[in-house]
C-alpha cells in the first residue's frame, strides 16, 4: 500500500514538473529585469565545465543564448566576438549558451559547436545547455537572446544586441554596449528590455 502511495506522489510530482516547465516556456516567464540569475554548470567546447562563479573578477556577465544554425545567430556572430574582445578585459565576458536540442537540430550538436568555435576562433565560452534546463530558467525564447547581468548576477538588460540584425553598419543603437556603459558609470541602463526577431529555440520532443 505504501509503495502505491509513494508511486502516486512521484507521479503527481512529475506531472507538476511538466506543467511547470510548460508554463515557463509558454508564458515566456523566467527572469525579469531586477531578478537574480541562477548560476549553471554547463560543458564548454573544450570539455571543461563552466559556471558564472568561475569568472572571479567579473563586473558583469553577458549571457547569450545563441547557436550555429539560426541565420540571426550567424549574422550576429562577428558582433558577439567583437563585444567579448572589447568588454571581457573590462570585466564583462560573453558566455554563449546553445539552447537547442541536437536531436531536433543536428547542426547544433556538441561536435558542430566545437567545429564552429574553432573555425571562427570564438574567444568566449560556448556551452551546451545539455538537458535544456538553463534556457527555460532564464526564459530565453529565441536565438540570439541576451541577458546582461551585473556583478551580483542581477539582470540589468534582456533582449537584442542592437537594433539592426541584418546590417551592422546601419545600427543606430547598441543596446548591450549602452547598458554596460551605464553599469560602468554606476547607473541603471536606460533601455532594459528589447524584442527582436529570431529563431525559436528547438526544444526536445517527447
Amino acid at each position, binding site marked *: 500500500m505504501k509503495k502505491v502511495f509513494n508511486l502516486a506522489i512521484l507521479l503527481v510530482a512529475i506531472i507538476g514538473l511538466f506543467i511547470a516547465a510548460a508554463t515557463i516556456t509558454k508564458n515566456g516567464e523566467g527572469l525579469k529585469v531586477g531578478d537574480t540569475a541562477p548560476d549553471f554548470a554547463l560543458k564548454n567546447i573544450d570539455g571543461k565545465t563552466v559556471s558564472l562563479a568561475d569568472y572571479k573578477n567579473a563586473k558583469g556577465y553577458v549571457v547569450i543564448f545563441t547557436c550555429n544554425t539560426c541565420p540571426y545567430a550567424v549574422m550576429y556572430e562577428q558582433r558577439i566576438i567583437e563585444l567579448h574582445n572589447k568588454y571581457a578585459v573590462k570585466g564583462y565576458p560573453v558566455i554563449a549558451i546553445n539552447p537547442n536540442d541536437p536531436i531536433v537540430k543536428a547542426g547544433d550538436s556538441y561536435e558542430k559547436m566545437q567545429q564552429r568555435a574553432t573555425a571562427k576562433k570564438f574567444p568566449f565560452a560556448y556551452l551546451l545547455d545539455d538537458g535544456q534546463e538553463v534556457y527555460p530558467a532564464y526564459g530565453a525564447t529565441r536565438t540570439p537572446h541576451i541577458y546582461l547581468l551585473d556583478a551580483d548576477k542581477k539582470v540589468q538588460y534582456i533582449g537584442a544586441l542592437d537594433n539592426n540584425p541584418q546590417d551592422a553598419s546601419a545600427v543606430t543603437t547598441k543596446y548591450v554596449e549602452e547598458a554596460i556603459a551605464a553599469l560602468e558609470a554606476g547607473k541603471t541602463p536606460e533601455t532594459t528590455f528589447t524584442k527582436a526577431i529570431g*529563431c*525559436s529555440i528547438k526544444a526536445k520532443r517527447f
Partner: protein
Amino acid sequence: MQKIIITLFLAILFLNACQDSGSTQTAKVKAVVSNKASIKILPGLPPIYEHFEDLAPIFAQQNDTTYVINFWATWCAPCVKELPYFEALTEKYATQKVKVILVSLDFSKQLETKLKPFLKENKLQSKVLILIDPDANSWVDKVNPAWSGAIPTTVVYKGDINEFYEKSFDSLSELEEIITPFL
C-alpha cells in the same frame, strides 16, 4: 450585418468630408500618403513593406472575415515545414470567410536569391507579403505584446477577437481547431 452598414455609413461620411474640403486639400493628402507609404513592388515578388506601420492595417480589419496571419521566412525550417498546412487551409476554406496571409520576414539581401525562387517553386496560393523593417523592437509588441519575436508565429483574429500562437503547427487539423471558434 450591422457592422457593415455602420462601416459603409462612415465611409460615405468620410468621402463627403473629403469632397467638401476642396480639391487642393485632397491633392495634399494624397501626396503625403504616397510619401509616407513605402511599399515596394518588384517583379516576381509580393509587395515589400519597409515600415511596419504600413503593414499594421492588416491586423485591424473590422469585418466578418477570420484572418490567419503567419510570420515565416525561407530561412526558418519549422516555418517552411508548416507552410503546407496554411496552404491547405487556404484551399479548404476558399469559399468561406477565412483569409490566410503569410508575412515573410526574409532578409532584404535574400529576397531575390532565396524568397523569389522559393515562391516560384512552391506556387503558394495564400496571400504573401514581405516585411523588411529591421527595427523589430519597435513593432513586435504592436503585433502582440505576448510575442517574444521568435518565428514561426501566427495571429488569428476576427474583428476584436484576437488569438496569438508563438509555436509551430503539425497538421491542418490543428490549424482548423484554432479557427473553428471564429467561424
